[in-house]
Structure formats: structure tokens, C-alpha cells
């Protein structure tokens, strides 16, 4: 089952004079494989958005059991007000694909809003994707970034935190600074792992390419 024992460290004061003025709801769907940390990514993003002054945030797994390697989804909601929604996300504003091979077996575009944005971990460029004609597409090679900073679990590169660095490029409701803050909180006391993840988000931010 889903674990997020690290969240205990995410106690913080809200920043004064936050950057966020919009109250609209943003719904985000993460696609990955079991073990890639999609749920962790959703949790960290929600925590960062909260720190940026979005009063309502939520992060949740696709409810139920998950298996390592199987396609999984996780969700985040970001709003300026308290969120009363408790149902699943059917029409995301943003889709984040941690593993591009998922796209062969899962329709990641299902239900995406017309003005939706798709962020993909890939070596390809946004215009390499056919659907870039219809959707805003952002790409980043998060796998190479994870390898560069040896962010590994069981020898496999873990892209969930690096790719969060690309999110501020496509969503103005959350800052890279807050993402890095919550990453430092998560890996507090874990030697340099927190700092390596922070650097990875900076690289991802700098290397994100968009078609818009």
C-alpha cells in the first residue's frame, strides 16, 4: 500500500506575501509505474503549492493496491480555497508522465482539458509528439538528470523529484523555491540526498522544453 511516512517532516509555516493570486482549481494527473514514486511526487507538489499560498491542496493515489512496474496514477489538486472535492480526477489540466513507455499502453490524454498541458520525461522534443499540435507539451530528460545525481532506488533512476523542477515552467501556481523547500524537508537528515534532489530539480527547470 501507499506509504508516505516522510510527510511527518512537512510541518511548516505558510509564507507571507505569497505569490499566488489565482483561486482557480488546477487538477493534475501523474502517470508512472509502481515504484517510480508518482504518489510521492503528487504529495510533494501539493505541499509546495500549499507553501506558495494555495490554501486548498490535495494529493492522492489511485485508490487500491499497486504493484511494482505496473502502470499507476496519482493525483494532485491545487486551489486558492479549501477543496471540497473528494472524487477522482477525470479531466486534468495537467498530465505528468514519469515513464514515456506508459504511453504505449495507457491513454494519458484521456479526459485532458482542451487547453491542458502534458509534461513528459523523455529525450524527445515537444514537437516530436503528434499531439503537440493540439496540446501544450513540455519535455525534460529527467532520467538522465536522475542518473547524473545518482538518485536511484534499487539501482533504477527515480525521476519523480527531478521532474517536479519542470512544473513551475508550466504552472505559475507553484515556485521552484517551494518545491526545493519541501524536498529538503522530506530528506532532512539523509546526508546529501536532499541536496542532490534539489540540484536535480534545478537542472530539470533549466532543461525543460516547451512548444508554447
Amino acid at each position, binding site marked *: 500500500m501507499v506509504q508516505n511516512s516522510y510527510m511527518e517532516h512537512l510541518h511548516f509555516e505558510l509564507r507571507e506575501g505569497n505569490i499566488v493570486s489565482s483561486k482557480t482549481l488546477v487538477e493534475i494527473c501523474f502517470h508512472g509505474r509502481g515504484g517510480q514514486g508518482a504518489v510521492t511526487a503528487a504529495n510533494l507538489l501539493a505541499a509546495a503549492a500549499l507553501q506558495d499560498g494555495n490554501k486548498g491542496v490535495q494529493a492522492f493515489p489511485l485508490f487500491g493496491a499497486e504493484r511494482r512496474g505496473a502502470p499507476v496514477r496519482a493525483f494532485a489538486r491545487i486551489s486558492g480555497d479549501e477543496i471540497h472535492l*473528494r472524487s*477522482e480526477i477525470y479531466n486534468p489540466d495537467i498530465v505528468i508522465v514519469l515513464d514515456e513507455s506508459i504511453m504505449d499502453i495507457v491513454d494519458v490524454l484521456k479526459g485532458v482539458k482542451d487547453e491542458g498541458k502534458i509534461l513528459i520525461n523523455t529525450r524527445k522534443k515537444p514537437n516530436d509528439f503528434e499531439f503537440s499540435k493540439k496540446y501544450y507539451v513540455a519535455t525534460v530528460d529527467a532520467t538522465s538528470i536522475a542518473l547524473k545525481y545518482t538518485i536511484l532506488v534499487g539501482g533504477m533512476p527515480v525521476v519523480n523529484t527531478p521532474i517536479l523542477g519542470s512544473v513551475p515552467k508550466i504552472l505559475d501556481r507553484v515556485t521552484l523555491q517551494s518545491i526545493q523547500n519541501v524536498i529538503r524537508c522530506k530528506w532532512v537528515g539523509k546526508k546529501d540526498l536532499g541536496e542532490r534532489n534539489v540540484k536535480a530539480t534545478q537542472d530539470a527547470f533549466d532543461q525543460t522544453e516547451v512548444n508554447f
Partner: protein
Amino acid sequence: MTIMIDTGNRIAAKAAVMAKPEVVAAYPITPQTTLVEAIAEYVARGEYKGEYICVESEHSAMSACIGASAAGSRTFTATSSQGLLLMHEMLHWAALARLPVVMCNVNRVVGPGWNIWVDENDSISQRDTGWIQFYCSSNQEIFDTVIHAFKLAEHEKVVLPVMVNLNAFILSHTSMPAEIPDQNVVDNYLEKYIPKWKLDIDNPTTFGNIIGPAHYYRVRRAMQDAQLNAKKLIPQIAKEWMKLSGYFHGDLLEYYKCDGAEYILLSMGAIGAESKIAIDELQKAGQKIGLARVRVIRPFPVEDIIKLGKQADLVVIDRNISVGLEGALFTEVKAALYGQSDAKATGFIAGLGGKDVTYKDIETMCMKSMKGKVKEQELYGMEE
């Protein structure tokens, strides 16, 4: 004060630990597991200094809580679904022995068919055990209600066990922010538990001995009085907490946009939160419908339901079914109205087995009821 963003289970664990129970006895079961694991982490870090007993079953968990509570300790446990059902005998025991045990129950489907998702048949089937039952709709409400639960359970006019229900996954595994007060705020709010009687080797007494019909009658009567006292105390306790924490989630019910409503929707748990969006949308479309989210079903808020019945017709959504009749809330709402109000009550059973219930589903149900197209109660979402 700090903001904690975490799952409903872990926020429940935080509240439980801050209430400083002297004994926690628990057995893990999906989707409650992360709740008791979180308490175990507090033990490992030295932040929870009570006795944490890993037992071999839920029956033992409740038995251990009963023993500890009878010895005068503040006690806490958590369970879900089949685990709650395995406790059934001991739930009656805790209530009849007037032991203020506090328990979180993560509402999960009862199997078979095996299913770990949400519905409320597990706790609904325990209504007659004598436990006070709360149903939460947000992580903040979970935190605050666990604290309230200890206050209420141990109140000298109540002294009954309290069950705090949170829906599987939708709340138990969903991260949302909750404001956590400083420890001294909780300490001041929850005075030390001083039982009227306890098992004490220096002052031996017996309890639970054989009693005849006349005395047993009194035991039941006293429990009934205690539940009715709780009905008066719950709003008072919620308001006291609001002064300290700034948070208020309602009395026995939470009213949402009921002014001028000709229809009132009654729902519980996570559907109760989602219902707010449905009410917003329906009101935008000119419909005169408000929401009364039922937070407490034992004691049942009879007077509040009658008041609603004098204002409006009622639409009830149950995430449970009392097989052979209908949804339990629907039955109880109608029973409350009987002879007191001519309000029409119609309703739906929805979301069994964890089937998602969106605000659009809720709008559809409300519209159908308001158009007079529902006789009694229907099963919603069975078209496929």
C-alpha cells in the same frame, strides 16, 4: 500552530498521540494500517510515551483497550471493516461497561466480494453497540474530531466509547492540510482522565457481575441517558474547540447554504464534502436546495432533522444498505420525522464498494428527487 500536510490516517495518528492516551492497542488492517504505523513511528522516535500493545487480532485490540480503560487509562485504537466486525462482541462490552475508549474506524467495504474501498456498512452495522459515532469529511475535521472524541467520551455525563469514522482512501490516504495546534492547547482542552471507578488492587471492587432484570434495565437506561447527554454536549464541545483552534465543522450536523432552501440534502462522510460543490452548482442554476451534512449518527440528531423537515423536503444519500430494507440514514431520518413533520423524504444509495460519487452524480440525484421522480429510495449508478 503549524500546518501539517498528510493523509487522513496520519493526521488521525497525530491527534491520537497529542491526546496522550496511556495505552494504544491495535492490529493492522488495510486501509487503517498507515494510521497505526504512524503511531508506532511516534513510539520509535520517543514522541509517544504511552504503552503501545501490538496484539494478535482486533478482538484482542478492543479487549486490551477495555482492560486498560477499566484500569483507569485513556485508551485509543483504530481498525476497519472486518477488523471492526471481529471486535463486535467487545464493542458492546466497552459500551456497557461504560469505558471511554476512543477508536478511529476507516470505513471499508465488508467482504466477500473482497474489496478494500469505501463504504459505510462496517460502522453502520455497529450502530446498536452503544458507541457514539462521528463521520468526518476532511483531514482537519479528523484531527479536531479525534480530540473532541476524548473530551466527549470521558465527560462525566457521558462515559461512553466514541468511534471516529473516516472513509477509506478518500480520506485515509489523501493528503490535505490540517492546522495542528500547539501541544499545550490540547493539554489544556483535554484534562487528565479521572475515572469514577477503576480496577484498583488497593481498592478492590467487582464489575460486570450477574445482575437481575431490574438492574440490567437501569444499565441500559443509563446508557441511553448518556447518549442523550452527548447529543447536548457535542455542539458545546465543538464550540469550545472553535474558540481555541478557530475550526468548527458543525454541531451534530453541518449546515451549508440552507437559508431559504425548499429541499435539504442529507449526506455523510466524504460525500458530505463533495455535496457542497453540488449545492453550489444547483443553487447557481436557481434550485432552492441546501445541505445538512450528518456528522453524528449516534446519538441520532432527531430534533435537528425535525427542524429541517419543518423547513424543507429532504433528500438522503446513504453509502450503506441495510439489506432487506434500505439505507440506514434514510430509515432513521423518516423515523425522526414521523408524526412531527409532513416533509417528504426521498433518497439514494450510492457509492457502495468504493464506486466514485462525483458532485455531478449528487446533482443528478438531487434533481431527480426534486422533480418528484423518486419513490422512496433508489440505488444510484447501477445502470452499467
